[in-house]
């Protein structure tokens, strides 16, 4: 085990040290910080995979999440993406049940309140939709309804319609369930069926290259949903 831990510390700690010495971060640094985190995470995953079964438990304490948490937190005051990172990685916050739910609600309020959140709004809506159990369905519903009334991209409107439809259709209240069902039908007909303008999506290749479906406008496009399995 010592060997594995040593390898890990040799990789993770110099990175942490170097960035501490470099001083305070600003909102624009999200990409750099995240790249640094992904590197540390990949190293951790590699060491974890290679470790014998009985050592895995102890190794878990070496997960880079908690060490990176304060740095994303600092960045999150100005950066919506960093705030989304905090939400997605909240298990590394050290917060428990109620504190965690409060933290998440505050974080979502911040993300949706940010002025220039267009680039990550869809990611935020997806995260919120999946988080209903933690932050409460009323909280989710109120944000989603707010977005539908507001001014956002067609892609964000579509994803919001789908998420709100899903949420409402599982309601015990008949009227709300019917409203949800209608929203889901609207989403299917207007965004993903034959005859609809295709809802845009953001893709990332395995090597980290980011693209959008809409990059191919002007061409006939064959979209292939597939797996090699």
């Amino acid at each position: 085990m010592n060997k594995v831990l040593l390898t890990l510390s040799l990789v993770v700690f110099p990175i942490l040290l170097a960035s501490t010495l470099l001083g305070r971060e600003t909102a624009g640094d999200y990409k750099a910080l995240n790249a640094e985190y992904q590197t540390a995470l990949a190293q951790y995953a590699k060491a974890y995979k290679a470790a014998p079964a009985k050592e895995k438990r102890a190794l878990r304490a070496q997960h880079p999440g908690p060490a990176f948490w304060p740095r994303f937190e600092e960045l999150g005051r100005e950066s919506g993406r960093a705030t989304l990172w905090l939400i997605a990685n909240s298990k590394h916050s050290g917060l428990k049940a109620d504190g965690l739910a409060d933290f998440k609600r505050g974080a979502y309020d911040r993300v949706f309140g940010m002025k220039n959140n267009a680039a990550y709004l869809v990611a935020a809506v997806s995260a919120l939709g999946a988080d209903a159990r933690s932050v409460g369905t009323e909280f989710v519903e109120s944000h989603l309804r707010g977005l539908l009334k507001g001014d956002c991209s067609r892609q964000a409107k579509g994803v919001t319609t789908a998420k709100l439809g899903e949420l409402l259709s599982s309601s015990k209240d008949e009227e709300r369930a019917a409203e949800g069902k209608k929203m889901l039908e609207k989403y299917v007909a207007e965004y993903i069926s034959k005859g609809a303008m295709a809802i845009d999506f953001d893709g990332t290749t395995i090597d980290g290259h980011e693209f959008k479906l809409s990059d191919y406008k002007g061409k006939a496009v064959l979209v292939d949903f597939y797996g090699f399995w």
Partner: protein
Amino acid sequence: MPHLRELVELYDGRPFAIVGVNSFDGEEDYRKGVEKYGLTWISAYQGSSSAPISEMYQVQGYPTLLMIDHTGKIRFRGHNLEDDTLEGLVHEAEEASQR
């Protein structure tokens, strides 16, 4: 998959693109698959545990194919490729660019 590779050659130089969206392959399997099937076009990789783009499009079975015209409209959705439909869309895209 081999058929898609032929399409790349068939429509070489014409306004046509394939956009793959891989769902549920682990990284190793994915890289092997790309090699084996000679996948040269762009493909989103979603990892092995979740597939947000497939979910967004409510993909139920694989493969699912969409043909989207040059304006962004979905003109076909199904599991089997319709060569004539595709040829028609590529032709439309050419006409539009010459206008």
